[in-house]
């Protein structure tokens, strides 16, 4: 790029391919960590200079102290366990439902005609509007919370799955059929692996939504969990605990992203770096 191409007497040039330079892992990690570190530094500077008063948002040091305090008296781990169980079970139900529905509508014409329009209608209903209805139906117990998370996570998974399944190369399916592969085996061995990129995108969206739905579910009459911790902190104006809870939610989202990235690497070993496929 920088050096001018050497021209030989015959007017020919030496081709210079632009190769990507190999970079060390630690360098990549440093670059990745740069953004969060800068944010943290800004927060700390703003608190230290008095720009950010403690009644608006606690300083990083106070938040760290709150984490230690909550961890020592067991409140944080209890809340985390409760919340993660809720969102985990809800997410599992939602993923299973979305996957099943998505495969049905994506792979069979009958399923598409029968289910898709109603599912697309249901999908547009904001799940938050279901909160009062769920409270009437199921009361204010765990079922209502888990089902709310399940409903919220079903639809992103459904949309991604059905589009991924629909995008399977029809020539490949035809070839498999000509070799006598059954429909179920085709779904398991060809369609689903082919749809994995979409499935993982759906998983990513569903995981994010499960945290959002968790917050919504825990805002209503919870007696345990991160949301409960937050509403307690709100009544005592403990901005340090509020900040801890918000950070926990953020870290949950980050963890979900890391999980999906790992899954991408583990579940799709056939993907070459060039993304070529035959």
């Amino acid at each position, binding site marked *: 790029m920088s050096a001018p191409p050497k021209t030989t007497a015959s007017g020919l040039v030496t081709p210079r391919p632009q190769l990507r330079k190999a970079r060390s892992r630690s360098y990549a990690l440093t670059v990745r960590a740069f953004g969060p570190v800068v944010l943290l530094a800004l927060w700390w500077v703003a608190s230290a200079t008095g720009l950010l008063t403690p009644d608006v948002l606690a300083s990083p040091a106070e938040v760290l102290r709150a984490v230690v305090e909550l961890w020592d008296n067991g409140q944080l781990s209890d809340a985390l366990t409760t919340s993660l169980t809720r969102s985990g079970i809800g997410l599992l139900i939602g993923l299973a439902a979305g996957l099943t529905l998505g495969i049905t509508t994506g792979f069979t014409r009958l399923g598409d005609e029968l289910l898709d329009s109603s599912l697309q209608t249901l999908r547009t209903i904001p799940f938050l509007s279901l909160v009062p209805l769920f409270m009437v139906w199921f009361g204010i117990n765990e079922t209502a919370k888990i089902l709310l998370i399940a409903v919220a996570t079903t639809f992103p998974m459904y949309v991604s799955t059905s589009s991924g399944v629909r995008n399977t190369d029809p020539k490949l399916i*035809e070839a498999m059929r000509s*070799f006598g592969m059954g429909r179920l085996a085709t779904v398991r*061995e060809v369609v689903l*692996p082919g749809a994995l990129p979409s499935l993982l995108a759906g998983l990513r969206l569903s995981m994010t939504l499960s945290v959002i739905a968790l917050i919504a579910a825990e805002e209503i009459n919870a007696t345990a969990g991160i949301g409960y911790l937050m509403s307690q902190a709100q009544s005592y104006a403990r901005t340090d605990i509020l900040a801890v809870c918000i950070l926990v939610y953020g870290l949950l989202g980050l963890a979900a992203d890391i999980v999906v990235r790992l899954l991408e690497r583990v579940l799709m070993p*056939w993907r070459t770096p060039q993304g070529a496929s*035959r």
Partner: protein
Amino acid sequence: MTTDTPTTPAVRVRDLRRVFGDRAVLDDLELDIARGEFVALLGASGSGKTTLLRILGALDGADGGEVLVPEARTIVFQEPRLVPSKKVLANVTVALPRSRSAHGLRALAEVGLERHADAWPATLSGGEAQRVALARALVREPELLLLDEPFAALDALTRLKMQDLVGELCRIHRPAVLLVTHDVDEAVRLADRVAVLRDGRLITDETVTVDRPRDPGNPAFAALRRRLLGDLGVAAPPQPVPAPVEPTPGRTEVGVI
């Protein structure tokens, strides 16, 4: 279809019709292929040769007529059509019971790829991927092997090697073969019989009498070649000069190498 004498047909087609819109692509077509016979079907682009193959392979329906094919039949498509998420050996034994992987390895060895059994399809070259597709078709011990322009997407050198490989493997396994192609030289090199499809029916159907190994310089080869090109509506050059053809995947014109 019960006895296994050489005279029993592997394929029997009578009065076959296939209509797209108001155009009859196949019109009262008749075709017989004996067991172990290698038939090459020539035709210009859009003449319906692939449609005929797809009907024989049960991938398309017919609009009329009688079609009889053996139960065991496999297809090699123009593209390899390998499942990207399965390793090479699993692609060969796709839809077969797990106990058949030894057969799969043997089939891979026959196409010279036993060392690639554990590779991903994306890492193979075009010729290698097509050889895997050939192994996948042969491991099922087909009585009818349908080849749908299997060499069209390959470069000229790989194509020649693949033609030799297919010819040799067909001599060993003796399936009935229908090779759909638009390459006259390929047809004459490999086939026991060549047929030309035009206007919905076979306007030529003759046994190839050129001695094997078939050399394009042989006068009988050249004469047959010229005649077939004439049937295809292409004026043959006076001297058969082997001109290099660019390896364009999915080329549509009548190949003349």
